[in-house]
Each structure stands twice: as C-alpha cells, then as structure tokens.
C-alpha cells in the first residue's frame, strides 16, 4: 500500500556568512495511512522546519518527499498550491482565523476554489457540529475562547478531507483543560477522517497520546524510546 507520507534522506541547511547551518540531516520516515505520530525535540532543533517541508511550505536542500505516492516538489507552483489545498491540512499554534469572517466562513475558506457550495456548506456544518460549535456558526473569532478558536482551526484544516494533517504546537497557546480537549478532539477526528496526523509539540502529554513518537536530535530524526 502506498504510504501517506514518505521522506527519504531529507536534509535542510541554510547558508550563513561562515559555514552553512545544517538543520536536518538525512531524515527518513514513512507514515502509513491513519497513523498518528508526534515529533518532539528542544526549541530550534528543526521540528517546525521538518513540518514545513512535509507541508510543502519549504523545500529541502536534498532528499525526496512523497505524499500519497506523489513528489510534490516536482510540481510547478500553481499545481503545488492546488495539491497542498487538497491533500494537506494545517493547524498552527496561532489559530490564524480571519477576524472579519464568521466561524463557518473561516472553515469554508480553503474551499473557495471549488464550485459545489451546497456540499461544502454541509461538510463545514458537519465538522463544526463535530467540534461542538454548531451553535456558533455566525460568531466572529473575537467572540470565541482560545480553545474554541483552535477547534475552528481544526475544522478548517479538515474541510477538504486531506490525507495528511500537520499540527504545529496545536495546544501551545491553550490552558491545560482546553489543551486536553483539543488534543482529544484532534485524535478523534484524525481517526474518523482516516487522516495521517503529524504533531510537532513540546508537550509530553500530547506526544504520549500519539501512536508513535520521534525525536529530533542534532538534525537527525530518531524513534523515541
């Protein structure tokens, strides 16, 4: 079966005035469909860089990335943007909701290039009901709590039923209670949607809830024992 994500010898380095700064060294990982993994490591170790490469937001210096069997970095920029929109969902530490749009409109934003408004609307409402915000469809982000905003962000990430859901410190800005709720919701939805989930986190509690945990150390990705 084709893995949801396959990374082969991914390296990333940034040029500096002295010598190149190596962030990732020969990272190799394969994630099956519906798998949920956490990536942990100290600040600045390259977790977010790796997540951005998985999300095709950054290109690796060397190595090969395949998502659902396709090499996204071989695509031209407009095609890559469409690929990203259809196959990858993002949840960031900040919710990044548009303040001028209502809850449901924010969830519908990734579907703007599509035509079938009825189907999209139904899917958005279904997701918002699932995250417990069916009564807040017309509310603005400013009228929601931090946890609620992050739930809207999760619904937005899943609106196009992506094969890959990437979450960068999704509970980093939340209190413990909200963080637990969001973590539980993220895993539930990942299972329901049959999506492969990669979470980058500092939180040991969140990492422990994932099926696997990897650690980045000195630029290398290794399974955490």
């Amino acid at each position, binding site marked *: 079966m084709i893995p949801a994500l396959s990374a082969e010898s991914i390296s990333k380095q940034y040029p500096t005035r002295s010598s190149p700064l190596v962030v990732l060294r020969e990272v190799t990982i394969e994630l099956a469909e519906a798998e949920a993994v956490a990536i942990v490591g100290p600040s600045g170790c390259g977790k977010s860089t790796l997540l951005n490469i998985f999300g095709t937001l950054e290109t690796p210096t060397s190595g090969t990335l395949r998502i659902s069997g396709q090499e996204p970095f071989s695509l031209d920029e407009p095609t890559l943007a469409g690929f990203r929109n259809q196959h990858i969902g993002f949840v960031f530490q900040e919710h990044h909701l548009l303040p001028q749009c209502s809850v*449901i*409109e924010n969830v519908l934003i990734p579907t703007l290039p599509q035509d079938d408004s009825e189907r999209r609307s139904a899917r958005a409402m279904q997701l918002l009901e699932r995250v417990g915000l069916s009564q807040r469809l017309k509310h603005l982000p400013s009228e929601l709590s931090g946890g609620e905003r992050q739930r809207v962000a999760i619904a937005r990430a899943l609106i196009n039923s992506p094969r890959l859901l990437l979450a960068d410190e999704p509970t980093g800005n939340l209190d413990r209670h909200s963080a637990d709720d969001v973590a539980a919701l993220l895993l539930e939805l990942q299972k329901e949607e049959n999506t492969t989930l990669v979470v980058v986190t500092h939180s040991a509690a969140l990492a422990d809830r994932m099926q696997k945990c990897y650690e980045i150390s000195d630029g290398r990705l290794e399974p955490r024992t």
Partner: protein
Amino acid sequence: METISLTRKIVRNRSLRFHWRAGLAVVLGAAAGSAALIGALFVGDSMRASLRNLALARLGPVDFALESGRFFREALADELEESAELKSKIKSVCPLVMLRGAVTNAETDARVNDAQVLGVDVRFWQLFDRPEDAAAMAEEGRTVVLNWALADELGVEKGDDVLLRLPKPGEAPLETLLGRRDDTVASLRLTVSKIIDVKAAGAFALQQKQAAARSAYVSLAVLQRALGQSQRVNTLLVTAADSNANAESADSSLDGGLDEKVTLSDFNLKLKVSEQGGFATLESSNLLIDPPVESAALESVKVLGLESVPNLTYLANSITVVKDGEPGSAIPYSTVAALDPARIPAEQFIHADGSAIAELADDAIFIHAWAAEDLGAK
C-alpha cells in the same frame, strides 16, 4: 438545512468592511501623496517651460555664441560669415565686447556694480531687428543706451550722465612683475541717449539668471579704444540660416570654420622666424603660454620633424656678484631665461671662447659677456 455560501466577493467585501479605517487611511494617504507628486510634476513642468522661455527670450535670434576669456580679432566675424563652407549654414555673425562692470549715476552716485556692458555696433541692432536703436548710439559719440532694468536702478533718464568703470584686459597677470597695476580700469563718462525696454536686445544675456540683465550698450569702437583693444572683441553671436536645423551639425560646422579661420593673433601669439639663426620663436603676449597652446605647439613641432626648446623668460629684480660672502656689483632689472642647454643646437649656445656648452648644473647660471664685464664676474 441552511446553505451558507462563501465566494471571493463575499470575502473581499467582508475584508473591506472590517478594515475600513485602515483602508481609508491608506486611500487618503495615497491620494495625498499622489496629489503632491502630480502637483510637483505640474509645477516643475511649468517652471521648466517658464525658464526655457525666459532663456530663449534672452537669446533672441542668437543660435550660437563664442565667448572667450581673451580678446581676438573682430575681423574673424566677417571671415566666418563669408566662409564658403559656412555660408549656407550661417545667417550672420555679430562681434561684440561683453564685460561686467560698474555703472554710476554721475549726479546721485547711485551705482550698479555688476552691470552687463556691451560694446556693440549696428550689426548687433540689426540682429535684433532694431536698426533705430543703432542711431541712438553715435559711433564715435560719448553716448550710451541703457535698458530699463539698469536705468531704474540707477535712477537715470535720457540726457543724464553715467560713469562706466570696466576691468581693462592686461597682457600679463597683475600678480606678476610685468603686470601693470596702474592701468587696470577703463573709465568712461557717457550720456544716456536712449532707454530701451527689457525685451529683444534689451533683454539679451548669455547668463542663466532669473532676474532681468541690467545692461548698458556702448559703441563698439568707443569701448575698444577705452580698453586698448582696437579691432578686437571677446564675443561672437551667430544666427543660423535655419534655426530648426540640426544643432549638432551646425555646431560642428562652426567648429570646423573656426579651426580654419583663427590665426595665432587670435590667441595673442606671435611666431618669429630667424632665418639667420635657423630657428623660430613662439611667443605669447600673455607672459605664459597656456598649457593647451603649449601641447599643440609641441605636437606641431613633432609633426614637422623639428626640435623644440621650451623656455621661460622672466624679469629679475637684480643680479648681484657675491665675493667672499659680500655682495658686490649688481645689474638691476635683467631678464633671466630658464632653458635646457642639452636641447639647444651647439652652435647657438657657446662659451665666450667659442667652445660648446654641454650642460648647466642646477646651481649654476650663465651670463653673457656684457653682463660679466659690468659685474666683474668670471
């Protein structure tokens, strides 16, 4: 179930409404910036056009001007005008003397220090199509025509007397021993015969200034005499046959015409040929030969396959013999020539006994037999 549709238009309108304050500030800022830029461009364009019109009005029919720091032959104007090569390109060439000087109201002492004084003849007035003004300036008479800008500032009217003071061109720089310090200014007392409007000839100026030129027009012959520059001028005004013709082509034709017509006299130079001595001397009445003239002369000598001996001759206050540390006999005001004996043909530079002089040490001087005799020097 209610269907909620979201389109790009909805997002755009929502964004405009939500960010209206910031958007309005940006629009107002852009409008103010654009207005300032457009205004500046309009004003700049208008000012450029005004300055251009002003400059053209001052030049009148003049298309080219030759302004020189030294005086040259007045006849050069006729020679250029009659040149076969330039005849089709030039309508007229007008010679004149153009200087800055002080003009004083002889009665009230009101003075303008930086007036433009023009020594002109009928050719200048014809250039500006004002032959009637030429009549106001009798060729040999002590009269002057002023423009209103100068007359107003001096407070003079027709019939009043004015005093003109002009720097007199000297042949040797004033700071040198040979420069004459007692005769540096030419003064003229003249009667105002006419006051002309500040337009056409009355506005003529070659300088780029916003204020109108304050000009006095004097008979060319009178001014030349006062300056000791008979038949010599320092400016030529040229009117092209076709003002719309390619300026560069007319300009290069004029350059070519000048190259052909100028003589050594126009550069205050004299070439003296000594057939007996077998040499020629190039002398400048300006004491020193200008570097461009020196380069051109040396180049010509090279082309002709001749030898050159550059030398500097100057005045010494005195030459005194020193014996046993005590000054002895002296010769006042002698000329001293600095030269390189190695570059002089042997037969031209010899000892009293007839032997050739091979070299001249840095701390040595040669004096001729008469001077040696007077000084009692050996």
